[in-house]
């Protein structure tokens, strides 16, 4: 079974600085996808960024980027120029790809990292 581990229950960063959230995963599949979701106090899950395992290039979305190390099964999220609105729980998630039999698979989530932004 696939597992996702977030080893940092809580992280704190000064506004405008950069922070990196860690995520490792365990899978025997070759086709899969990785995601970072943000959960603000409203508790709605918001997609931050997505990475396809077959792509070597790290995904970026504005101030958010990932460091995808496939051999190490590591998928960290870097937030640049942190803003107060970035304060939230961040969840790393995994799902199998279509070619690994994951046609309608749900997501496997880590336990989350609580990100605090210090003004």
């Amino acid at each position, binding site marked *: 079974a696939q597992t996702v581990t977030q080893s940092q229950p809580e992280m704190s960063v000064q506004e405008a600085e950069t922070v990196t959230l860690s995520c490792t995963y365990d899978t025997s599949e070759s086709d899969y996808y990785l995601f970072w979701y943000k959960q603000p106090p409203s508790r709605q899950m918001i997609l931050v960024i997505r990475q396809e395992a077959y792509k070597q290039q790290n995904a970026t979305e504005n101030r958010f980027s990932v460091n995808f190390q496939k051999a190490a099964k590591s998928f960290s999220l870097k937030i640049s120029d942190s803003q107060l609105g970035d304060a939230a729980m961040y969840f790393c998630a995994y799902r199998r790809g279509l070619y690994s039999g994951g046609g309608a698979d749900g997501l496997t989530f880590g336990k*989350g990292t609580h990100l605090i932004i210090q003004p």
Partner: protein
Amino acid sequence: SQTIHQWPATLVQPVGSPLSLECTVEGTSNPNLYWYRQAAGRGLQLLFYSVGIGQISSEVPQNLSASRPQDRQFILSSKKLLLSDSGFYLCAWSVSLRLSETQYFGPGTRLLVL
């Protein structure tokens, strides 16, 4: 654009009472639909998913059941609630027949069983 709705937003129910949570999606056809539960301070756990009307797959055996009576409607039910059913329930959808299916979440339902 696609939107996903869940209701009620908050629910307080006594132990042993029935439950019905509803999720509907607008702006898409034949979506894959999912129910997740988030216990306090925990990540999300997949409960059920559905690839079409009447097609339900259960991930975790428990006190809950799901149904999909219409293409864009997904219902989570229980005949008798337990204290352990308390939590935050999220519905999600994804486009079917796509290689990289991102899941998009609804606003969630907070359930407190007393």
